[in-house]
């Protein structure tokens, strides 16, 4: 066991993959000489050299598309798009090519590409640097969408993703990079097919992922003081969703609140609510509630940004609202 940050865990995952598989390489803006915009790849250029740690120009569409091509031709690229906000410039490649090539080719060509990007708000970066669009990516057939929220998952999801024959997107929430904790010395690959119950409870299911997990756990802690025993489900993977774990929890607690940093309308929280409607309606003692981001571009000032995002008090209020 040793002290680690989420950032360290993400870096270790890359180092480990680079060492274990010569086909793996990292490509993106400032991953090399700068050390990574969030310092995830710091030191890797020195360790692996410029052939495998590739600084790219500001050309999101081209280097993402090149990752697709390289993946189709024997390599295992890790493309880093600095943040999900800039991934909009590469969306054509991700949706029209990465997600469709296997299908369009009748299964002949696969795209074993991993794309990592930072997501989320909380650093007062305002309207163009604070999106949470992982829920949108989860709408696209052909993609897998991972949202590591713990050190174990930051450390372990990458290798599993690299073994996947299809494109996998990994979203690292910007507020998690400095989160520290301990990580087993032998920490390694983790499965990506199951959601995780991070806290057992019997009264209500709090379903969340990514940066919102920790706010949700905090809310659950608060609720326990007033005798409400909340279960916290970390989705971990947004596509495909693990219905079994979600419904299992909801059928047990008969109540659910979904916490999602995406803008409320059309966020992944809506899909989860709809699935509960379809698969577990008769088990519900109350309507499924959602705590999401306000329907506004993220404002710069701290107090307004805080107000725009899901926070523990709002989660607690939502739970009380459906416990009543």
């Amino acid at each position, binding site marked *: 066991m040793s002290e680690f940050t989420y950032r360290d865990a993400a870096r270790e995952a890359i180092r480990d993959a680079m060492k274990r598989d010569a086909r793996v390489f990292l490509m993106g803006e400032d991953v090399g000489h700068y050390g990574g915009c969030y310092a995830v790849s710091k030191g890797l250029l020195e360790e692996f050299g410029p*052939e495998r740690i590739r600084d790219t*120009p500001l*050309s999101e569409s081209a*280097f993402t*598309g090149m990752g*697709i091509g390289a993946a189709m031709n024997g390599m295992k690229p890790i493309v880093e798009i600095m943040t999900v906000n800039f991934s909009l410039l590469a969306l054509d*490649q991700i949706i029209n090519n990465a997600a469709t090539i296997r299908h369009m*080719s*009748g299964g002949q060509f696969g795209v074993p590409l991993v794309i990592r990007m930072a997501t989320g708000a909380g650093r007062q970066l305002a309207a163009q640097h604070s999106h949470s669009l992982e829920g949108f990516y989860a709408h696209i057939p052909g993609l897998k969408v991972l949202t590591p929220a713990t050190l174990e998952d930051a450390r372990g999801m990458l290798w599993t993703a690299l073994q996947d024959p299809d494109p996998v997107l990994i979203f690292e929430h910007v507020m998690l990079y400095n989160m520290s904790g301990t990580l087993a010395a032998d920490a390694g690959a983790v499965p990506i097919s199951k959601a995780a119950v991070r806290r057992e409870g019997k009264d209500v299911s709090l379903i969340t992922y990514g940066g919102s997990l920790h706010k949700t756990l905090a809310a659950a802690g608060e609720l326990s003081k007033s005798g409400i025993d909340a279960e916290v489900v970390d989705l971990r993977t947004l596509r495909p969703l693990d219905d079994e774990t979600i419904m299992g929890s909801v059928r047990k607690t008969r109540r659910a609140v979904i916490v999602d940093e995406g803008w409320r309308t059309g966020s992944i929280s809506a899909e989860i609510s709809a699935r509960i409607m379809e698969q577990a309606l008769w088990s519900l003692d109350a309507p499924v509630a959602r705590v999401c981001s306000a329907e506004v571009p993220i404002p710069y000032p701290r107090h307004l940004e805080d107000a725009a995002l899901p926070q523990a008090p709002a989660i607690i209020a939502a739970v009380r609202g459906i416990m009543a």
Partner: protein
Amino acid sequence: MSEKLHLTRDSLLDLLRQMLRIRRFEEKCVELYQAEKIRGFLHLANGEEAICTAAMAALTPDDAIVATYREHGHALVRGVSARAIMAELYGKVEGCSRGRGGSMHLFSAAHRFYGGYAIVGGGLPIAAGLALADKMQGKKRVTACFFGEGAAAEGEFHETMNLAELWKLPVLFICENNLYAMGTRLDLSESETDIHAKAQSYRIPSQSLDGMDVVAVDAAVNRAVAAIRDGSGPQFLECKTYRFRAHSMFDPQLYRSKEEVEEWKKRDPIPRLANWMREAGMLHDSDLQKIEADVKAEIDDAVAFAEAGSWEPVADLTRHAHAEAAS
């Protein structure tokens, strides 16, 4: 005709045969579209056959191809069977993309034919990526990337040109400049209409040539491919050509005159090569008759194959969205 030097009569005959295969195949496609056997978008390359024909002749099976939605000829000359292509146009399981792709999305792993891409410019980064993988793996392969001049306006063109040259990737960019992007004439869409000069602005060795002259294209591609194999990075060829038919089956062609089309038809690469070979005593009517007969037989067989092909069961609808568990 220029630089015929290294071309033997046999290789010239083969160029002629390949161009005719494409022409006749696509003429058949028109019939089949009208008969509603082929649906969706159908983009024909009548008039542009010399480019892919000459290019494929210079490439080895080890090289990779990336093309657009106007790629029947590219696939055909690359070696994908007329049967597999026709079955694809029918949407049958026996098609080269199992019927999933149709005319715009021909793929064939066996031929390293990495596909027809229908988002203009979208294939360029993929071609550069294929080349990057070859370079990182120390393979002396070339990736040939075909696209129309309209793609030069897309940001992806710019980004890819820069990265290909910056990283000295083994890509051969072949621009099929047929003067129009759908109905938009080049000078209505580009402030600099000299496409090959654009490539030079990224320091990519670039050349503009007559895409209606299969021998000229052959020579240029051979030179470019040799340079790329030497490891000097990407090369760019702008082949000036013309689309004799509509952009797709839905195009009323309001944007150009019949006269303009007729003018260009005089430069049709097929009679051009045939006549020149005749004059050089390398082609006799009997040769041509033989080729036409063989081509017709091949196409009839392809149609029969497609007709006899099978529809993928609806139960398999969601297949190929993801890889299937290795069994």
